[in-house]
C-alpha cells in the first residue's frame, strides 16, 4: 500500500454525465485517458498515483542504504535488481499519472514542496541487514495485498501498471522472506537481527493500509469510483492473516502480544497500531522524514545541470538537423 489517506475530490459536473460515468464503472468497464471523467475522479487519481510513484522513488533510499554493505555478492545483486525494479515502478506510475494531464516534474516539485506525500513506511530507518529482508517480506508483502486489489481499479493505465508491478513485487517479497529465513535459522546474532527487524517494522507495516475506514472520510467516493477496491481494514486483516504463520515458521516471537487466532472470526486478532505515531509521521516527524526529503531535494538540485545539459543538447541537435534539411 503505497498510497494512504488520499483525499477524494468533490465533483460538480453535469448529473447526466456523472450518471453515465458511474454506470460504466458499475459495469466494470475500464476508464481510459481520453474518455470523459469527472474532475474529482481525475484529481483523486493524480493524487493517488502520484503518491504511489513518489513512494517507489523515496523507497529506494532505505534499501539503497544497504546496497554497499550487502553481505554477499548474490544478496547485493538481488538488492540492486529489486531497487531497480522500484525505480521502474516509479517510472510506470509517473507515466500513468501523465495520461491524466500532469507532468512528472510537476509531481516532483509538489513532493519537494511538501504538497504531496509518499508512504509513511519509508520514514522508518533500515538499521540492520535483516531490515532489508523485512522490507521485502513485510513492506512489499503489505504493498502486494493492496496492489493485487488495485489490478481491478477502474482507471485502465493504473490497473495495467499494477499487473506488471505485482509480478515484480512477488519476487521482492519472496527474496525478502528468503533473506530473513537465512538469518532466523542462522547464528544467534543473526536471529537477533531478524527479531529486531520484525519488532520494529511490524506496526509501521500495518500502518501502510491507513487508518480504519470508520475514521476515513475519503473512502466512500473512491470506492464508488473503484479507485479503491477494498477497505483499509479488510486489507490489513488479510495482511495479518497471511503474515502471522510466516513469522511463526521462522521461529521468531510475534511482535504483538495481541496476535491471537480467533476461531469464531476465522481471523487473527491484533493490536491496532499507535495512530498518533502515524499522524506524527505524516506531519513530518517520523525518524527519517527530514533525511529522506533532504536526499531527494539534493538529488534534484545537484542534478539540475545534468537535466539542463541534456535539454540544451537536444535543442542544439534539433537546430542542426533543421539547418541540414
Amino acid at each position: 500500500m503505497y498510497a494512504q489517506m488520499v483525499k477524494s475530490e468533490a465533483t460538480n459536473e453535469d448529473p447526466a454525465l456523472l450518471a453515465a460515468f458511474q454506470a460504466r464503472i458499475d459495469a466494470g468497464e475500464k476508464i481510459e485517458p481520453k474518455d470523459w471523467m469527472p474532475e474529482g475522479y481525475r484529481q483523486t487519481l493524480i493524487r493517488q498515483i502520484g503518491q504511489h510513484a513518489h513512494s517507489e522513488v523515496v523507497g529506494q533510499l532505505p534499501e539503497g542504504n544497504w546496497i554497499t554493505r550487502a553481505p554477499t555478492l548474490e544478496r547485493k545483486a538481488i538488492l540492486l535488481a529489486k531497487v531497480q525494479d522500484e525505480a521502474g515502478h516509479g517510472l510506470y506510475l509517473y507515466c500513468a499519472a501523465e495520461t491524466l494531464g500532469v507532468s512528472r516534474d510537476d509531481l516532483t516539485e509538489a513532493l519537494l514542496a511538501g504538497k504531496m506525500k509518499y508512504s509513511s513506511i519509508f520514514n522508518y530507518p533500515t538499521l540492520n541487514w535483516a531490515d532489508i529482508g523485512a522490507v521485502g517480506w513485510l513492506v512489499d508483502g503489505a504493498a502486494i495485498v493492496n496492489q493485487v486489489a488495485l489490478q481491478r481499479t477502474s482507471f485502465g493505465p493504473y490497473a495495467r501498471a499494477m499487473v506488471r508491478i505485482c509480478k515484480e513485487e512477488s519476487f521482492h517479497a519472496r527474496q525478502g522472506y528468503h533473506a530473513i529465513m537465512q538469518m532466523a535459522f542462522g547464528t544467534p546474532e543473526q536471529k537477533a537481527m531478524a527479531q529486531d527487524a520484525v519488532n520494529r517494522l511490524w506496526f509501521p507495516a500495518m500502518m501502510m493500509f491507513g487508518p480504519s475506514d470508520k475514521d476515513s472520510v475519503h473512502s466512500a467516493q473512491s470506492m464508488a469510483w473503484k479507485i479503491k477496491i477494498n477497505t483499509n481494514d479488510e486489507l490489513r486483516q488479510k495482511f495479518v492473516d497471511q503474515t502471522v504463520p510466516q513469522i511463526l515458521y521462522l521461529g521468531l516471537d510475534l511482535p504483538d502480544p495481541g496476535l491471537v487466532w480467533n476461531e469464531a472470526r476465522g481471523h487473527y486478532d491484533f493490536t491496532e497500531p499507535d495512530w498518533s505515531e502515524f499522524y506524527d509521521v505524516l506531519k513530518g516527524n517520523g525518524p527519517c522524514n527530514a533525511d529522506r526529503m533532504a536526499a531527494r531535494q539534493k538529488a534534484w538540485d545537484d542534478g539540475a545541470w545534468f537535466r539542463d545539459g541534456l535539454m540544451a543538447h537536444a535543442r542544439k541537435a534539433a537546430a542542426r538537423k533543421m539547418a541540414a534539411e
Partner: protein
Amino acid sequence: MAPAMSDIMTPDAAELARVAPGHGKAAAESVSPERDLFVGLTRLGDNTLILGHRVSEWCGHSPILEEDIALANMALDLIGQTQLWLGLAGQVEGAGRDADALAFRRDAWDFRNLLLVERPNGDFGHTLMRQFLFDAWHQPMLAALQGSSDARIAEIAAKAAKEVAYHVERSADLVIRLGDGTEDSHQRMQAALEALWPYTGEMFLGDPTDARLAEAGVMPAPEGLRAPWEASVTAVLAEATLVRPASAFAHKGGKQGRHTEHMGHLLTSMQWLQRSYPGAKW
C-alpha cells in the same frame, strides 16, 4: 630529560629495501601459470566489483529517475560479472575460496583493480566520465578475451561483452550530450576529464604477469588495448567538444595492490558484515 633515541637498524636493511615496497602477500608468492591466471582473473573481477560498488552508491540519489534505473542496472551487470570472474579465480586458486571469500575477506593490498575505478564518484559528470573511460577500455578488453586460449574465460567474456556494449553506448552518448550541452555541463565534463585522465594510463601498462598471460594466449597484453581505446575516446571527446588533456602522466599501482586512500574506506563498508560476523551464512 628524555633519553636520546639512537637509529635502530637491522643488519639486512639493504636486502629488505630491495623487496618491492607496499606489496602484501602477493609479492612473496612464487610464479606459476596458475598463479598468473589467478592474478589476471582477480584484476578483471576486482575492476567490476569496485566499479559496481561505486556506481551503486548513487542508488536513489541520481539526477533523474531514468539514471537511477540505468545505474542500478549497470551495477547489477558489473556485480554479476564479478561473480563469474572471482568465482573462476577461486576455482583456479584451489584453496577453497569462492567469489564471496575473495570479495569480502581480502585486504586492500590483495585487490588488483585499476585505480580509476576506486576514484570517488564526485559529481554526476565525474561518475559518467569515469564510466566512459573505463567502458572504452572494457569493451576491447572483453573482445580480446573472447579469443582466450582458456575456454572458461572466453565464455565469461562473451556474456559480459553483450552487457558492456550497452554500457559504452550509454556512457559515450551521455559524455557527448553533456560535453556539448550548456556551458556549465561542458565545464563540468571537462573538469572530470582532467581529474580522471591521469588514472587512464594504468590500463595500458603491462607487468611480467600480463606478459606471461599474453604469451600463453590467455589474456591480451594491456599495451595492445591502447589503440582501440584511443580511437573510441578521441572520437567521443571530439563530438563532445571536450579537449583531451595533454599530460601523459599515469598514476599506477592498483593492479599490483597499491591503492589510493579511498580503497580502505570502500572496503570498510563493503566487508563490514562479513568481517563482523565471521562464519555466518547470509
